[in-house]
Every structure is written in structure tokens, then in C-alpha cells.
């Protein structure tokens, strides 16, 4: 059981490393989005500091979302997904492996980059820590929920945009608690409550989403 999960992770990581440009691009997308908002909104430092948690969280969320279509699409197009579905291993476990690998190449690096961008917005140090931690804690849920959406929209033309449509509403709670945690820190309330809700979302997402995604994939293959 564990073996097949870890093997799927290893395989997906290897594929991701064959194209380091992908990983780098997710990060740059994050950087660019985080820099676009100040452009659209104007340069006042106070305003920007107020915006920072929201903008950074939305950026992380969009960056994760953009990398979702690739989660299954490649495997679908070249027939690998059929083979996975026909393998004697439970498909849910393989999806779990793919979700974890996806997080390792998207959520994790985003979390590590977030504090650097937060500095640009002049966030105080404790808020930076909470920002990093909240993204670290919240992004697995994004990958998990995203997998369901990616499974449901698999093989549909324009699936990418349809995928956003399905997934974004489900991302909203993560966004609210994530940005909320940082806001709460800035305003001195302490992020505890928000962070534990975030943890609950992630545990739910990672434990349950792969099975829903596997069911969606089976339907997509029919």
C-alpha cells in the first residue's frame, strides 16, 4: 500500500524534474501576480500592507490552480491513465501519490517563497511566519480538492477554465482561513483558530479527495 503511494510520488517527481521549467514557472507566476496587484491598485504603502495577506494568498491559490490541469491530463492523453485504472492497485492510492507529488512541486515551494514576497509588502516578521505556515498548511488541501476538479474536467475541451470554475468556490474556505490567519496576526488576535480550521480542511482534503478524484477518473475513462 505505502509502497505504491511512494512509488507514484517518486515517478511524478521524476517527471517534474525532467522539466524544471515547470516548477520555476509556478513560482514566477506567484511572483508576478503578487506584483501585478500593487500595479493595478496604486502604490500607497499602508494600503498595500493591508492587502498583502489577501493578495499573497490569492496568488498562491491561482498558482496552484494553474498547475492543476497537468495533474492528470498528460496521463490521460498518452493512455497511462487507462493503464493505472487497470492496475490491480487501488486507483485512490495512486491518486494520493499524485496529489502529494503535486504539493511537493507547487505548494511547498510557494510557501517557501511567500515570506520573501511578504517582505516586499512590508509585512511584520510574525505575520511573515504565519503566512508561510498557513500556506504550508493550506496548500495540501488545495492540491487535494484540485485533484477532484481535475478528474471531473478531464478530457473536456476547455477543461482548464471549467476546472477553475469548479475548484475556485471550494478553495474559498481555504483562502478565508489562510488570509484570515495572517490578518489576525497583524491585528494582534493570534492566528490559532484560523490555523486549526486550515489543518482540518487539509486533513479532510488529503484523506478524502483522492478517492473522489479516483471515482471521477473512472467516469472520465468510460
Amino acid at each position: 500500500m505505502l509502497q505504491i503511494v511512494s512509488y507514484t510520488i517518486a515517478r511524478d517527481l521524476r517527471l517534474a524534474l525532467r522539466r524544471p521549467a515547470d516548477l520555476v514557472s509556478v513560482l514566477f507566476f506567484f511572483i508576478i501576480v503578487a506584483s501585478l496587484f500593487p500595479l493595478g491598485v496604486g502604490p500607497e504603502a499602508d494600503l498595500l500592507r493591508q492587502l498583502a495577506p489577501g493578495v499573497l494568498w490569492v496568488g498562491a491559490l491561482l498558482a496552484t490552480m494553474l498547475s492543476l490541469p497537468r495533474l492528470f491530463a498528460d496521463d490521460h492523453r498518452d493512455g497511462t491513465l487507462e493503464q493505472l485504472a487497470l492496475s490491480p492497485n487501488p486507483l485512490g492510492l495512486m491518486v494520493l501519490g499524485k496529489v502529494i507529488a503535486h504539493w511537493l512541486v507547487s505548494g511547498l515551494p510557494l510557501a517557501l517563497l511567500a515570506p520573501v514576497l511578504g517582505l516586499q509588502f512590508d509585512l511584520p516578521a510574525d505575520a511573515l511566519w504565519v503566512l508561510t505556515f498557513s500556506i504550508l498548511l493550506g496548500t495540501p488541501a488545495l492540491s487535494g480538492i484540485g485533484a477532484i476538479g481535475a478528474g471531473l474536467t478531464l478530457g473536456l475541451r476547455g477543461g482548464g477554465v471549467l476546472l477553475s470554475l469548479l475548484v475556485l468556490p471550494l478553495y474559498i474556505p481555504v483562502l478565508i482561513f489562510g488570509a484570515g490567519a495572517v490578518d489576525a496576526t497583524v491585528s494582534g488576535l493570534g492566528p490559532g483558530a484560523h490555523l486549526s480550521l486550515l489543518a482540518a480542511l487539509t486533513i479532510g482534503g488529503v484523506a478524502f479527495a483522492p478517492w473522489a478524484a479516483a471515482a471521477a477518473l473512472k467516469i472520465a475513462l468510460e
Partner: protein
Amino acid sequence: MLEAENLECIRGERRLFHGVGFRLEAGELLFLQGRNGAGKTSLLRMLCGLSLPESGEIRWKGEPIRKLSDDFRSDLCYLGHLNAIKEELTPLENLLSSARLAGETLSDDDALDALEQVGLLGREDLACRYLSQGQKRRVALARLVPERRPLWILDEPFVALDVNAVAWLAGLIGAHLQRGGLAVMTTHQPVDIPAGQIRELRLGA
């Protein structure tokens, strides 16, 4: 071992086939025939359990495949129109990885041996993206070399292969049958498999 009874397939408003049934025993090959669009691919996907028949039943060792699921899948090897290889990985990595994901283990030596048989030695470290159409198909077929699961379902395996490769693959299927394996296959090209009992089933005649 593999039985199908009274299968019916409907696509859109068109009934592709109905009342299709057969019985295949160890060492036998079922050769599925029919013009383009007759429903051969649709039937093969049903036999794998990837799609459900409108009516009728498929049994493996006497049990309906719906009930067996995992057990059936560990007896089955399917090769479809698509090659199921990763363009970024090398032939060697593809072979090892598809074995692992199918729940088997394959030593490097066995994998290299399989690649040698399909004539890809010397390209085992080149990303598959660079291979020609026929070479990609060969990578997909290399999976069959160490394959010991009893039931092979092959959808037009000879497509894009050159003459030598066609002969080699026919031999490989023959050997599988002689080991007591079963195979269901479609192809539009005339080939002869050098062994085994061959049954024919013509769809949409």
C-alpha cells in the same frame, strides 16, 4: 476461462453490436474482425472492464468481472490504441515505471533485455519524445516481453510497426499462447501467429 455472453453495445443512437458471445480457453487466441467502426475497440474496452456493456455479461474463470475487479485486473494486460508511454522518460524508465505501477517488479537486466528484443538497444537513454512513431509503439510493446499475466487484450498492436517488428510480435504472442496464455486481438493487417488455437469473431458482419 474468459467467457462473454450476449453482449450489447450502444453508442449514441446506434446499436453497434448485440448478442455477441464467445468462450476462450487457455492457449487460445480470439481474433476480432470487422470493418472500421464495427465496434472492436468498444468490445475490447468492455472486456477489460473499462466500460460497461448495455446488456450481457463477461466472466473470468467463471466469475463476472464486475465482482472480481482487483483479481481480474491482476490477470490482465491491456494494450490500447494509445501507447501509454511518457515522452519525457527514456524507454528504459518507461518500462520500469509501467511495471511498478502495474504492481510488478522488473529488474534492470530484464528491462534491457526486453528493449533489445524490440530493437531499441542504443536508444534506451533517449527521451521517448524523440523516437519515431514505430519506435514509440515498440516501447509500448516491450512491456509484453516479461509479461506473464494470462490474459492479453491487444488493440491493433501491429499498427506503425515495420515488417521485422510485425514478425517478432507475432512470435511473442505465439509464445504466450504456448505457455497457456489467452489473447484477444484485433488487427486489419494479415499476420499469422505461429501457434495456438485461433478463433475468429466478426463484428457487424
